[in-house]
């Protein structure tokens, strides 16, 4: 299909990738393809794990406490392993490893609506009716995942989260969404033997080609590409990375999982899903997945914020982050894996009549760490009541540019949108100077 304007590297890259996929699957050889590519651990590959706090977390109660202010709330700050940096008293395990983490305390984003904020923080761009921007996981899948020839599963995996659009980077870079239990539904061909399956796939190829050749836009080809990825996945040994139960007991315990007789079965509460997801994320990093998003929801705390934080959200968050950082350190992966913690926005410094906090985007915090960054710092600051940034402000583009920098992806890459506009990755954001040193 022709386009009115010459497209840039994204499209060329996309085509190349497609050609490669078409050459390998589906063919009669498809089962041999599996044996040839046994899972191999690649510990030194760069990756990013995004911890997505759906609903908008109250960062004033977690990372940037305001004791003494009327907005301060019920929690006290405690010291951390990073000198001079204090965080919430309900985050002790995270505090203990904080020399590997940092906070950016002067985020100022303009979107305080869930949908718009989710879009802005994930893409770096404000929503625009003429173009769909890729979420940053798709950018990483495109830039890093596409270059990892041994990677048979998608380069962007979202555990327990929403989807997010790959935008102009195409369906090949869409997130693969899985549950925290790691079971991939329907990935088993059941009674159908492999040779029969490849016959079917050959037949499918014939039908799909007819439809693609009839020229009806991008969707028919996109469908075929997704099937290639799905077949790749069905036949891959790397699928074992989703199976957290293969981890040894000691590692599970690091994340607060598997206590009391080692039962990892049905008794698991939903609270452990986040820890389990982070452990899965580490396993996925080991097989070469460059971007994993893990969701922890339940932050839309318009009422009863302190009780909910103290008894539910923060214990879950704290144990899982503490476990992940310790695990990554022990395996020598902490300098290769960049961690980002954010939501679509944060919550009002003012405490409302329902002892809740509402939506707030003007002055808040994002946590970032690992990835060989200069960690153990708090960058930027808010004023005494937390209602404004007291220093230089940062936007999501700056966070994503920092991630790109840490992963060795040039920040001057420009993609081309479907309507021919150049799009800088991370919306032209700048890596945060204090963090990249």
């Amino acid at each position: 299909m022709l386009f009115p304007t010459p497209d840039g590297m994204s499209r060329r890259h996309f085509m190349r990738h497609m050609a490669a996929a078409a050459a390998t699957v589906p063919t009669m050889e498809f089962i041999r393809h599996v044996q040839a590519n046994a899972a191999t651990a690649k510990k030194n590959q760069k990756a990013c794990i995004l911890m997505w706090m759906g609903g908008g977390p109250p960062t004033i109660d977690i990372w940037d406490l305001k004791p003494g202010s009327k907005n301060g709330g019920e929690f006290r700050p405690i010291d951390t392993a990073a000198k001079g940096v204090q965080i919430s008293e309900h985050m002790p395990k995270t505090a203990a490893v904080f020399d590997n983490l940092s906070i950016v305390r002067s985020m100022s984003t303009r979107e305080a609506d869930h949908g718009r904020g989710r879009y802005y923080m994930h893409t770096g761009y404000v929503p625009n009716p003429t173009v769909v921007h890729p979420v940053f996981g798709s950018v990483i899948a495109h830039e890093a995942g596409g270059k990892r020839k041994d990677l048979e599963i998608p380069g962007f995996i979202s555990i327990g989260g929403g989807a997010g659009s790959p935008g102009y980077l195409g369906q090949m870079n869409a997130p693969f969404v899985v549950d925290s239990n790691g079971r991939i539904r329907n990935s088993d061909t059941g009674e159908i033997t492999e040779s029969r399956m490849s016959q079917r796939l050959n037949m499918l190829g014939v039908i799909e080609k007819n439809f693609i050749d009839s020229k009806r836009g991008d969707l028919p080809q996109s469908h075929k590409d997704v099937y290639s990825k799905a077949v790749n996945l069905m036949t891959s040994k790397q699928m074992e990375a989703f199976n957290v139960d293969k981890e040894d007991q000691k590692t599970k315990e690091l994340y607060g999982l598997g206590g009391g007789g080692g039962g990892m079965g049905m008794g698991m509460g939903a609270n452990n899903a986040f820890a389990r997801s982070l452990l899965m994320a580490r396993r996925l990093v080991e097989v070469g997945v460059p971007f994993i998003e893990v969701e922890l929801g339940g932050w839309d705390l318009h009422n009863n914020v302190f009780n909910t934080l103290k008894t539910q959200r923060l214990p879950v968050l704290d144990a899982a982050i503490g476990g992940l950082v310790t695990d990554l350190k022990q395996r020598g992966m902490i300098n290769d894996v960049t961690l980002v913690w954010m939501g679509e926005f944060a919550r009002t410094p003012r405490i409302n009549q329902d002892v809740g906090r509402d939506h707030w985007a003007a002055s808040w915090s994002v946590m970032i760490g690992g990835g060989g960054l200069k960690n153990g710092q708090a960058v930027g600051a808010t004023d005494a009541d937390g209602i404004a940034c007291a220093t230089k402000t940062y936007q999501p583009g700056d966070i994503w540019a920092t991630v790109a920098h840490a992963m060795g992806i040039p920040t001057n890459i420009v993609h081309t949108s479907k309507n021919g506009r150049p799009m800088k990755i991370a919306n032209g954001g700048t890596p945060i100077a204090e963090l990249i040193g």
Partner: protein
Amino acid sequence: MSAPDANTEVLELLELLLEERISPEQFQRLEQLVRADREARRTYLRYLDLHGSLHWNAALGGSKSNGEKPTQSRVSNDEAGDSSKYVSHTSPRRTLVSSLSVLMTVFVVAGIWTLFRGADHVDLVQQERNATNPPAVVEEQQSPEQDKSRSSQSVGPIALDLNADKVTPEGNKSEATDTRSVATNTPTPNAAIDNEKTSKPGSNESLVAFVNRELHRVWEDNDQQPASVADDGEWVRRAYLDVVGHIPTAKQVREFASDKRANKRELLVEDLLDGKDYVRNWTTIWTNLLIGRTNPRQVNRSSLQRFLREAFDRNRPWDQVVTEIVAAEGNTEENGAANFLVAHLNNQAVPATAITAKLFLCQQVQCTQCHDHPFNDLKQDSFWSFNSFFKDIKVVDRPKPGNPKVRETVLVHNQHPGAIYYELRNGLMKAAYPRYDGEPVSTDAADLRGELAKLMRQGESPQLARAFVNRMWQYFFGAAFTSQVDDMGPHARVSHPTILDRLTREFVANGYDVKQLIRWIARTDAYQLTSRFGVGEYRDDPSLGFEPLFSRMYVKRMTVEQAFDSLLIATDARQAFGSNWDEVEQRRQKWLDQFVRSFETDENDEADLFDGTIPQALMMMNGELIQQALKPSKGTYIDQIIRSKSTDDQKIDAIAFAALSRKPTASEVSAVRALMRENAAHRPAGADRGTPLSMALQDLFWAYLNSNEFILIH
């Protein structure tokens, strides 16, 4: 400097301009580039055209709010200070840059305009546009600049390009002229269908003729040759999917193909509108819109479905349906309409406010909750005035009177607090009272939300009707008149203002008759076209960010419900599930649960994980539903085909018609034959046993159901 570099620079500067980050020096540079280079001018025009009024109003909003009123400028300064680094420079400079950019862009566009276009054409489009963008929730305060700015953006990007090329003095490009001469050969499409118009009762000849005339005019204005008319198989499949939510059976396709009546398409739509699957389809669509696929707490889904089923079955006027939903009170079991507000009344009714505006008025107001709209004139105050209509009710969970063992959820009347207080960005509190489109309603009104509904349907062309027409059009064509179906705010450009306007008025005049609107849409020339591109038609693609011309049918993905129901039809599996509505509904619900995920926010928003994803592919390849349907056990469609006495070719035909509503192609037939030979040569063992033919037919059916052609509505 080479052309691409200059172009990139222009684009970068434009990006800065758009985001209000441009410095005066950069702006001068942009002016220089645009003046100096023809290519840059083209880029400039195209870019501005793409961004349309979004850009304009953004710049104007910035300068306007720094006006003379002290309170207003206070708010806006706060906003500038805490929102982002891009707008954090001092306000005088921001004002300067904004006004500069406005004046400059007005000047350049207006200048190029007069050079390139005949003035009368512009006026025509402009009048239409103004006429069809009445302020809905707000009073418009138009400054002279704004008027000017609007008048300079009323033409599609394509026409602009072609014309720019043609008239630029130094650019007598021959290929531009060629394009033009090819395109002027545009034949009038489907004259046959035009002639077939009969005066069926309830049909409105002059309206459909008007819509067709306008469609053709826009195609001509844009040098866009429409695609050819879809053949029967393509059309009947699409009509079934759009109107009743699933594909036709093989039998229905064949019957339609052999129907010789001239107006058979119209008659089919009529039949479909009368069927129970029409009711089921639109109940599904509106249940999902009103409360989502993941059921919010306290909501009685099946009761809401009963309400909608009755509404679509009796074809109740849309304004009535909306009134009952908006003004609902009572028990969620007894009054299904109450479930919408029960789902969204949390958090001071903020979600109810935003979602009511989005669904019924196609207005995005949620960001005005905290600040004035950045791109249009919606003010924070209008959000909260709208919000205060929802302050006289609350959701109560209580033991049922007379039967205390059973609990019930009830939407009960509550004393209205009088004033609603909201926080300005500077921390001051302000009061708001019920007000819609400038009209206040007393908080003492006995039926406050009933009054709101009355105001929503006031006038000849209320936004309530425009919004529904826009939604319906988008549903049938895969693209709305506005780039986003539920964003029809004052800044949103309307692709076919005359059509939207006329359909809206007629919809109102016909008493909000939903079925009638569907008849009109299904009879337009645009709906008859194929989804294939014709020659040189590749520009008409909204997915590339272009304004839709509806010169071909855009391909849509099936929703998860359409896919499920279509699989049941294709494989004749519906019998196995029984004809009980609720039972099928439950199975469908269970099946689609795996593809929806709630974001757990106050607005109950959710992600659809079905559209074109790997889980979808895995489910279609290996899922239980497919495996069951392909088993040659008694009663399945495949079993009937295998056992039938027809020839091999007829069997292959039957499979193709069932899945794709068409004959198999030559390449498909030869692939099946090759498979049969292979199966005969290497007889597999175990669970795969079967005759060479039956196995090949199963594989063919599997491949058809898994194909792009099956899952895409075209």
